[in-house]
């Protein structure tokens, strides 16, 4: 049996939390088009879906937004600029949306996001929380958006990838190099290799995108647990009941 007691009343004073709920973090101060704004909110919301129909629901939301994709790009880009810096997940979701819409005109906005200065780390002293890491994830997601445009044949996208092959941030350089190698033409690749040689950064060419099944796997654990406490999981689709 576990040596742990049940939920014994506590004599100390644990932390207290107060939460305030807002509908969403977007202001849409530059867009008076309520229908378009709602489509954007719905698409962002559906990104976080769960269940067997999660992807279908997300695709449906993207499809509806896609009918107004050209207008949406401007609104999304403006909303990204308007969000507070610390809303990392919300900012990321807008960049992901720009990437999904695959609009050539989004290349400029994505480039601006990649190019923007990464603010100084706000979680100094931590090994797992990093605001700089959140910023880099936003930018590498923007690189992925540019890669998709490059795959669609957008010339400006290939130029952006080449430009960011010399970005000061390693992950952005790595993503740009891999994206151009996958979607650029022979001339792009020659130019890229010459650039990396000039910079002494040819090591980036050796980092390969791999299937997870091809990399060394983790060994797993060897812990023995109390079977009275740790039983099997119920099925994943029980639906909603009172908890």
């Amino acid at each position: 049996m576990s040596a742990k007691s049940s939920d014994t009343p506590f004599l100390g004073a644990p932390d207290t939390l107060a939460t305030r709920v807002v509908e969403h973090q977007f202001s849409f101060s530059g867009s008076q088009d309520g229908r378009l704004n709602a489509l954007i909110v719905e698409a962002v919301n559906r990104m976080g879906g769960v269940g067997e129909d999660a992807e279908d629901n997300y695709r449906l939301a993207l499809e509806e937004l896609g009918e107004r994709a050209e207008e949406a790009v401007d609104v999304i880009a403006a909303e990204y600029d308007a969000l507070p810096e610390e809303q990392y997940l919300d900012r990321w979701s807008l960049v992901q949306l720009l990437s999904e819409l695959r609009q050539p005109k989004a290349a400029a906005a994505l480039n601006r996001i990649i190019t923007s200065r990464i603010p100084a780390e706000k979680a100094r002293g931590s090994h797992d929380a990093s605001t700089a890491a959140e910023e880099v994830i936003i930018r590498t997601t923007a690189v992925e958006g540019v890669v998709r445009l490059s795959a669609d044949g957008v010339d400006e996208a290939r130029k952006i990838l080449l430009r960011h092959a010399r970005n000061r941030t390693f992950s952005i350089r790595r993503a740009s190099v891999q994206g151009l190698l996958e979607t650029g033409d022979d001339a792009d690749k020659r130019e890229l290799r010459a650039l990396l040689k000039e910079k002494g950064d040819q090591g980036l060419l050796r980092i390969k995108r791999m299937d997870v099944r091809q990399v060394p796997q983790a060994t797993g654990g060897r812990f023995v647990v109390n079977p009275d406490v740790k039983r099997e999981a119920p099925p994943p689709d029980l639906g909603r009941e009172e908890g």
Partner: protein
Amino acid sequence: MATCTYTVPDKSASGDNFYGAVICNQAYVDYFWNTYGFSGNKVYLDDGWGWDDCCNTSKPLARAFNGCYALTYSAQDYQNDSYNSAILNWGRRYVRENIDDLRCFCGDGTAIARSKGSGLIEVYLGFFYTKDVPGRAETLIHESRHQGGKPHDAKFPAGSTFGAGKSGADSTWDYEGAWMYGALYLWWYYAAGARTTSALRERARQRGNLVIDNAFATHPGYSI
């Protein structure tokens, strides 16, 4: 005792809105409570943390349950948690075998979670509100690896977003440390995650690549 506040968006890409409708089932509540270290720690989940409101995904407990749901059910064949399968399958087993107590605190903003030894994990506000749902599963696996006996053994490399030269990195992929476990879980989630969206899988890919690029003293030489 600390008192903290947080403003939570009702609609966002974190995954919490939709997980909320799923986890609000007594079978899941009982399972997660008894399996992933909540049992015996009610006091740390009271006073605004959601013990009396465990279906409300603006509260930490429900958001932790959402991470537990992702951890438990993101493999298509979730019932197979053999250590011979992928970490997407056995991650849940590894967490339940290594975390005995999961406790919530405000924190000071400098950490998402900490492994305190003897099966105790502390999680802070960022775990619930800056991490998306699969990211919370990643955190539980990362901290479980510390409980399993693998501390970080190296300094972050030059140019690392986690702070070049600071301790807290893993030396190599083959060290099989906490960063490798977390990145590998995200990699599998990207490649084969079930009951989720391509957007959350893409976010897992981006986070996994960030870890691979920045958290190993020697870059593994591959990416997602």
